[in-house]
């Protein structure tokens, strides 16, 4: 009977029976999804997450992969310098002192052909003429020069050495005495301001060849004999049986790259072009294609440059099929960097907010619930943390991390910790205020009056009523954290190369040239930051309105 009555009552009296029961959480959710801006925010955030976390998995590139491209650029091929110091060719089995070059230069200038080198050995130069000197190791001897035909001949030929009839070579030094000092000489080398280039790059030339060629050119002879072969001198070219053996020139050629052989033909062509005053010439390369070389003259130093296919880092490449957003200053794919950077930006946002909420809730909750001196102490700590000027602190910590050369991951962890340690105070204040006001609400008094334990009072009655404000604050705070991270990374204090974050991508725009010419480098990252922060604010607003519909407008 009684049951039936109640059934009837339910049917017609109380229309509330037909209304679906909605928990406060469901009501909030319903109100939230009716908010268009909040939905826009959610869509943006979901996109950002998919883009960063899923996109990062899909994209074939890594964030720090450097891309190269081939480009035809003007590169140094060879350099030519007029030889202005003596080239010394060493005799087989002899060793020349290291200061032979300077000593030779001094001796040739002063005419004092016998000198002592730094290691104490006595050397003498035999002046062949035309800047060619034979180098002898000498020792002073007493020798009568009178009626010595070889000596007379040498004096007549304006030479300071002669070969005596017994085959011994003597060097004499006239220092104003009646008779010059005579030295017995053993040949150890030859010096001249000339260089030799063999036509066959595998052939090495012998000392005897060098000496023969140099002496012949100094004496103006058209042939010489060395190693039992008779070489002919044809201008600068030395031939053997009509075949070119070597080129003698007073210009020294150096290849720009190691291992490149500068052929005598090339030298001849280049010298001819220089002599003719041309600023470029062509010469066939190994394949026979004519390549244009440009001549640059810098104070007698000639540089020959040519266009060369080179592998270069693909910097600031415009968006293309391969790189959808282009590449940055380091030749890294911007799309990949945006994705990986988004991971870090979003992750830092969430981690920091999580730590902030955790610390803030505990400190604020304890302060609010227990009150009294605990509240006083904790709130003064909060005040002190509030007073810390954040930007200088970030700058200092950033430079400390630079000093210790912290790795990219360490920097990320440290950044999270630092930002959270500074940011929790706002949440602590909000939680404390909320709990202070809730504590005085009659439902808390009622809970106490019904003898419910302190633990249940805090976790079943207080915390669920603080959570809405916390969620709102956290979602708004997320935007701030992402902005702060971007700011720090932009200033070069946060995430550093090669790790990427949206802020550090924008960091590339530190000169106006990049800003005006490579918009694709910084615009996407900037837009992403803007959209994400905006979206978190939309969501925060939406949540606030959903939690507290009375506050709306």
């Amino acid at each position, binding site marked *: 009977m009684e049951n039936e009555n*109640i059934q009837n009552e339910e049917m017609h009296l109380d229309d509330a029976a037909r209304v679906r029961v909605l928990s406060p959480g469901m*009501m909030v959710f319903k109100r939230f999804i009716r908010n268009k801006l909040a939905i826009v925010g959610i869509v943006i955030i979901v996109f950002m997450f998919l883009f960063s976390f899923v996109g990062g998995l899909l994209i074939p590139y890594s964030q720090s992969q450097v891309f190269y491209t081939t480009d035809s650029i003007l590169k140094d091929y060879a350099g030519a310098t007029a030889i202005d110091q003596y080239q010394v060719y060493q005799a087989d089995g002899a060793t020349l002192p290291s200061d032979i070059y300077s000593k030779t230069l001094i001796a040739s200038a002063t005419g004092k052909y016998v000198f002592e080198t730094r290691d104490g050995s006595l050397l003498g130069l035999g002046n062949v003429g035309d800047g060619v000197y034979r180098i002898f190791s000498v020792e002073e001897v007493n020798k009568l020069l009178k009626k010595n035909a070889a000596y007379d001949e040498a004096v007549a030929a304006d030479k300071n050495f002669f070969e005596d009839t017994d085959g011994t070579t003597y060097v004499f030094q006239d220092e104003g005495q009646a008779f010059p000092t005579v030295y017995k000489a053993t040949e150890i080398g030859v010096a001249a301001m000339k260089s030799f280039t063999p036509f066959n790059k595998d052939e090495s030339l012998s000392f005897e060849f060098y000496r023969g060629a140099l002496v012949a050119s100094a004496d103006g002879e058209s042939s010489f004999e060395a190693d039992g072969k008779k070489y002919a001198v044809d201008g600068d070219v030395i031939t053997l049986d009509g075949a070119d053996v070597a080129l003698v020139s007073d210009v020294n050629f150096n290849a720009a790259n190691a291992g490149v052989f500068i052929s005598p033909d090339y030298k001849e062509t280049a010298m001819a072009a220089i002599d003719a005053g041309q600023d470029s010439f062509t010469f066939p390369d190994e394949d026979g294609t004519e390549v244009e070389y440009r001549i640059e003259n810098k104070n007698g130093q000639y540089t020959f440059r040519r266009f060369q296919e080179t592998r270069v880092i693909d910097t600031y490449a415009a968006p293309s099929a391969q790189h959808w957003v282009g590449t940055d200053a380091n030749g890294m794919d911007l799309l990949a960097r945006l994705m990986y950077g988004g991971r870090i930006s979003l992750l830092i946002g969430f981690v920091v907010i999580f730590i902030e909420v955790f610390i803030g809730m505990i400190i604020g909750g304890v302060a609010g619930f227990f009150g009294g001196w605990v509240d006083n102490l904790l709130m003064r700590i909060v005040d002190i943390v509030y007073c810390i000027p954040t930007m200088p602190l970030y700058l200092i910590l950033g430079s400390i991390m630079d000093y210790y050369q912290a790795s990219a991951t360490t920097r990320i962890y440290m950044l999270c910790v630092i930002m959270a340690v500074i940011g929790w105070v706002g949440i602590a204040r909000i939680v404390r205020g909320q709990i202070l006001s809730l504590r005085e609400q009659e*439902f808390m008094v009622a809970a106490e009056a019904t003898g419910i334990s302190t633990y249940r009072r805090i976790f*079943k009655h207080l915390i669920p009523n603080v959570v809405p404000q916390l969620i709102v604050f956290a979602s708004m705070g997320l935007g701030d954290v992402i902005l702060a991270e971007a700011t720090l990374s932009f200033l070069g204090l946060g995430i550093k190369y090669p790790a990427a974050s949206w802020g550090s991508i924008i960091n590339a725009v530190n000169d106006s040239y990049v800003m005006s010419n490579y918009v694709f480098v910084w615009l996407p990252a900037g837009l992403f930051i803007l959209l994400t922060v905006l979206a978190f604010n939309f969501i925060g607003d939406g949540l606030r309105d959903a939690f507290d519909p009375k506050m709306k407008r």
Partner: protein
Amino acid sequence: MSTENMNTNAQENVSSSENILEVRNLKKYFPIKGGFFGGVTGQVKAVDDVSFSIKRGTTMGLVGESGCGKSTTGRTILRLLEKTEGDIIFDGKDVSTLDKKGLRDLRTKMQIIFQDPYSSLSPRLPIGEIIGEAVREHGLVPDNEYDDYISKIMKECGLQEYHKDRYPHEFSGGQRQRICIARALALKPEFVVCDEPVSALDVSIQAQIINLLKQLQEDRGLTYLFISHDLSVVEHISDTIGVMYLGNLVETGNTEDIFAKPLHPYTQALFSAIPMPDPDIKKDRILLQGDIPSPANPPAGCKFHTRCSKCMEKCKTIVPQPKDMGNGHVVCCHLYDEE
């Protein structure tokens, strides 16, 4: 009312069997903190030397204007506030000396219903949980009977069983007050402090709630301390009435006696303000002059002398003592001094 004279053990034992609650010389002062170091610079004497007793199964109405200490008295009895001085004897035990466990047991015997049904329900808990939470906490019913027990309580308080899963925001004020009553009664209390339980409700709902309270009192033999500033409601529900002014109980007695012949000038003024539903009845209203004085700095002598129309010279210096005018009708006023 048991006066301070009733101090012998024998009398106490007799009274405790008959009286469920005895309050003796209860004082509750709130410190006023001030100054640079936060020292106590003064005290708000919210309840200043109040004594009364309530017989088992009866209702005592506590009336007075706002801020006179009615609610503070109620909450101090429940030990939601710690008393400053005096004794609160509940069921023969001094409430203020109870340890943690004793206090926990006390919570099931004494309950309170609050004035505001909106703020006294946690917005994030379903009704079943609000009502049953403390029942489970105290283990009052076995687990297998728990659901039936909650349903039974809800039905008794005029709620439907399907309300269990709903949240407070889905209920009207009257329904919420029923939930509050159900929450209090679920603990099977013997004594309930009703702290203005109907003043936030409109008149038709007030009647429902009052009748519900009376019905429950009959069914369960409850004792109420009914705090209100609405004299008509108090007259309807109370067996005895206490009139409070500025922390003092100025007059107590049976409802009929007090309504028939209010003795204290303040009670007279209060009763003259009851609106009558008949416009032809002409009434001599006693209008009180001035505001209620601050309880932080109450007047000397009789605290009512600043506003009393019959103020005498000695009222300003001498504190009037309670006098029994017969049939337990006690008044504190110099008008009735026997000199």
